């Protein structure tokens, strides 16, 4: 049913730290690697070695230049499904293929019911859904449902592939519906924000803004260099001649 659950027991999602993300794309490739064999497999690539490369990715990392009166900085910005509380992508679905789970709030697609009308991708303001032209159905981030509950993995690996891959720990996974959880604490401490709050989709994923600039510069203990003295001898003579 594409009506939304009145309440979800958990609100699983990601917290992404824009301060520490270095834009290395490790989360992008880890996501692609896991999910092309996962719940929504395959993540089709079209013409992967040609001049019109296209394909399905659940996670894309943009780079922005953010200029304020404090100066400019580069911000690397991973963009994926935010598993919204009120996702219009689910309610617009005419077939019941899209749904939001009452147990953990994850937004998923039943590929076997999808007719590929693409309306859900129009309804998503964030560009989280990508159409697989080869299979003819819509695809999206599953929050790695096939990892986070997977008893075959050791416990520390039961996180989304993007979170496991991040070398700077810029991605955090947990229950954002529980105010005591580590991710909720992180959001509270760092002033985590919603993307496009004015849309009213109430995204579950939160973004931690880059920390404020500081005026600190590395202090150098060594004394400043003395000016070079003119020396005697042949080199001194050359120096004097050239200086005239």
């Amino acid at each position, binding site marked *: *049913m594409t009506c939304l659950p009145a309440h979800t027991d958990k609100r699983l999602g990601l917290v992404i730290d824009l301060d520490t993300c270095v834009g290395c794309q490790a989360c992008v490739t880890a996501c692609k690697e896991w999910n092309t064999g996962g719940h929504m497999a395959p993540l089709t690539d079209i013409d992967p070695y040609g001049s019109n490369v296209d394909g399905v990715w659940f996670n*894309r990392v943009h780079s922005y230049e953010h200029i304020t009166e404090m100066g400019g900085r580069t911000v690397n910005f991973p963009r994926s499904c935010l598993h919204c509380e009120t996702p219009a992508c689910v309610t617009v*679905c005419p077939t019941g293929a899209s749904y939001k789970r009452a147990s953990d709030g994850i937004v998923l697609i039943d590929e076997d019911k999808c*007719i*590929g*009308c693409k309306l859900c991708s129009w309804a*998503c*303001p964030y560009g989280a859904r990508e159409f697989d032209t080869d*299979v*003819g159905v819509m695809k999206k981030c599953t929050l790695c449902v096939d990892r986070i509950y997977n008893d075959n993995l050791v416990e520390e690996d039961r996180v989304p592939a993007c979170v496991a891959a991040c070398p700077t720990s810029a991605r955090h996974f947990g229950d954002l519906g529980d105010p005591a959880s580590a991710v909720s604490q992180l959001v509270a401490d760092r002033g985590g924000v919603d993307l496009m709050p004015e849309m009213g989709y109430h995204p579950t994923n939160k973004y931690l803004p880059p920390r404020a600039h500081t005026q600190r510069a590395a202090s150098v203990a060594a004394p400043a260099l003395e000016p070079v003295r003119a020396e005697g001898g042949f080199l001194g003579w050359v120096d004097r001649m050239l200086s005239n």
Partner: protein
Amino acid sequence: MHPAFSVVFFTTATGAGYGLLALLGVLGGLGLIPPDFWFGLIGMGLALGLIAAGLLSSTGHLGRPERAWRAFSQWRSSWLSREGVSSVLTFIPAGLFGIGWLFFGRTGVWVTLAGLLAAVGAIVTVCTTGMIYASLKPIAQWHSRFTLPGYLIFSAMTGSVLLNALLQVFAIGSTAIAAAALLVTMLGWGWKLATWRYNDALEIATTANTATGLTGGTVRSLEWPHTEENYLLKEMGFRIARKHGAKLRLITQILAFALPALLLLAAIFLPWPLAAIASVLAAFAQFAGMLVERWLFFAEAKHTVTLYYGR
């Protein structure tokens, strides 16, 4: 938004078809149109043909058209599903009305009732089509109070111009119908101009700042995540040059509104068969103009995802 021809044709054809069906249902059902078998057959055939062609065209937009039947299931939440259900349900009273009106004496309570129900079904279906677009928050040009009335007005406009053309061809036209078609065409013109004026002055609250959560200053896209256009840019990143947009708006105004209005005015005063020729030309010009209008409806609509790409 990418103007897919299947969807442009679908909304234009079904709009005209449902407009014509509603008018035939009301006017025929109440006995206000002089009874004529061939007129009725061609009129109902044209209305249902346009609807069927449009619906078939819309399935061309689907990735898995063989599963289209599933789209009837989620009418509780989805306007697209509601459109599917109401479009199919409308065929029932429309078919009954057509049979009763054409083959069985054309009057009687159940024929009138079927005609009126077909009209209600047609109006409801056009409303659901309009709401599919009007309900999409990420596209500010569609998520406005102009979208739903626009779909209804353009459906009434193209339907009444078609009805007038058919009546004129069978030499049973009336000044009232031609004048009504002219009035709705002028209304459509005014509505389209008001819509464009609203869209051009639109101040959209969503910016690259709110999209990225980076407050203050400017957010400029340095690098895309990919080198070639992906699905998002192909489907939602469509951009139209301002000068092309202006030209196409002019073409829309000439073909969809100005020329049909002049031809309908001429039809009111000209004798038959000149009135019939003018009426038919008005219908063709308007349909072509409405295809351009609908193409622009998509091409000029900007989706918020383009903000992530610095567009």
